[in-house]
Each structure stands twice: as structure tokens, then as C-alpha cells.
């Protein structure tokens, strides 16, 4: 009877909803997007720090950063007047995700260092 119970439990757990280990590391990227949109009390420089930390944590865990993290960080750098860092992160997004290349090139050509 005990054996039956154990087997039933095992079957139950195995056939339930399974969770899958995520491919990318997100950290506080969703929160950073939300803060940016809401224009809440989180300053641009704080948002930059949050995303720099996300990239650092991803490196520590040996996971790729989520699509958009470098592009979003690049935008924040452009907005804060740091075009050099902005370009660096746009280029990283392009290198990791070539799907973004045409769009980010369009932005960089258009702005050439100004605000996006």
C-alpha cells in the first residue's frame, strides 16, 4: 500500500505542470522597464546602475542576458548624455542579437549622439 502511494505521488508530480529553467537572465530588467515608463522616482542614473547590475549578475551566473537589456541600457546612457557608452551597449545588443541590428543602426545613424 505504501509502495502504491509513493508511485502514485511520483506519477502525480511528474504529470503536473513542469517548470523549465530559463534560458536568459532577466534580474530586475522588467522592473527597470516599468520604472522607466512610469517615470517614477527612480532616476536615470539609478536605472543605469540597476541594469549594469543585471549584466554583472548574468555574468556571475554564466547566463546570457535577456534580449533588450543592452539596448535599454544604451538608451539610458544616450539620455544621460553618454553617447560613447550608449553606442557600446547598442553594439553589444547587435552582437548578441543580430535581429536588432537594422533598428539600432537606424537609431544610431539618426541620432549620432543626440537623444534618441
Amino acid at each position, binding site marked *: 500500500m505504501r509502495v*502504491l502511494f509513493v*508511485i*502514485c505521488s511520483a*506519477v*502525480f508530480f511528474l*504529470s*503536473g*505542470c*513542469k517548470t*523549465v529553467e*530559463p*534560458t*536568459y537572465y*532577466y534580474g530586475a*530588467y*522588467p*522592473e527597470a*522597464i*516599468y520604472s*522607466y*515608463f*512610469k517615470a517614477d522616482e527612480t532616476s536615470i542614473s539609478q536605472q543605469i546602475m540597476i541594469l549594469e547590475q543585471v549584466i554583472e549578475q548574468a555574468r556571475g551566473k554564466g547566463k546570457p542576458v*535577456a*534580449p*533588450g537589456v543592452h*539596448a*535599454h541600457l*544604451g*538608451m539610458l546612457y544616450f539620455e544621460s548624455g553618454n553617447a560613447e557608452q550608449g553606442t557600446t551597449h547598442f553594439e553589444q*545588443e547587435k552582437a548578441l*542579437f543580430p*535581429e*536588432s*541590428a*537594422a*533598428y539600432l543602426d*537606424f*537609431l544610431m545613424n539618426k541620432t549620432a549622439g543626440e537623444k*534618441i
Partner: protein
Amino acid sequence: MRHLQLVIVLIAVALTSACVSMPPGQDYTAFRSADPHSIVVLLPLNKSTEVVAPYSVMAQLVAPIAESGFYVFPVAVVDQTFKNNGLTVANDIHAVPIQKLHEIFAADAALYLTIEQYGTSYVVISSDTVVSVSATLVDLRTGDVLWQGAASASSAETRGNNGGGLVGMLVEAALNQIIETVTDRGFDIAAITSNRLFSAESYNGLLHGPRSKKYGQPATSEKQK
């Protein structure tokens, strides 16, 4: 004889422990043949009274779409591009011709969303935060609809139902409203809604995209037929 009993019990357990009862499965024919690699998300239409709803949902849908194997264009950067071109209203953004979207983003597909419901309402017995979203994925090269879906999640699903009579329930409802307003429960619930709606692991979610290890495998609903 004992074995037969065991088998019957095991089958019964396996059948009854599935996630939910299933509506009809999606037709993925167009989606599969279009084979989109990248998705640009447009500012959602908002039928709720919560101004932050579209932003909350946009922030939370990146993960399930990316995990399904697609490139998701950076939602805030995209929205900023529209704003800088004078497009601040979802209706106007949704009206941009697909050729134009394809030209600027070089995205394979665009996601058009509507927030059907978002927020906390105090309704005497229970105070719940509900987030309901519907979505349409459109091929930017052809204009074909590749996929459509809708999903909903509520804080009532996760909260414990502790007894305590009517007065207890009323107090709990009032307290829940305070908690849910202060902690922006909507943002948390939007994550559950987004996951249900888009994840390739969800029934009737997106297909597994080219960046997924499961690329090319049947969708969740197709497996359960």
C-alpha cells in the same frame, strides 16, 4: 490482479492531475510557415482605468516571449521611438502601416495587444487584482494574422481562503485592497497573465521560436491532442 489495480489507479492519477481542462487547440499553420524570428511589441490599447497598465504588461511580457525563443525588441526603446515621432497614443501606433514598421524595426512580426481588465476592485466579499490581456501577432511582411490569444490572472487564485465568517472576510477584503494598491500587485499579476498568454509551454501559447532548444517541436496544445 494487484497489477491491474495498480495500473488503473496510475492512469486515473495521471489523467486527473493535468493542468486544466482544455479548450480547442490553436491552428498554427500560418505561424509555422511564416516562421517569425523577431517580434516588436506595440503600446497596448487600454480598456482599463489604470494608466500604468500598458507599461506594466509591456515590461512583463518580455520574459515569456524571449523564453519561447523569439527576439523581443527592447520595449521601452521602441516606445520611445514612437514618442519621438509624435506617436504617443496606442490607437495611432496600431494604425501605422505594417510596411513602415517593417522598414524601421526590420521585425518579422508585430504584437498588437489590448488590456481588457487591469486593477483592483473592492467588491465587498473579495478584493482582487485582475489582469486580462488579448493579443494578435501579425506578420509584418504579409499582414497575415499568425496567432491570437487571450489570458487572465487574478490575485484571488493565489490568496489563501482562510475562514472566519463574513466579518473576517470583509476585513480581509479591505486589507487586501490596501496591500494590493500599495505593492502594485497588478505588476505581479501581469507577469502571470503574460506567461499564460505567450509562453510556448502554455496551452495555446506561442510556438517555440528559433532561439529555443525546442524550435520545431509541436506546440503544447498539439501534443495533448
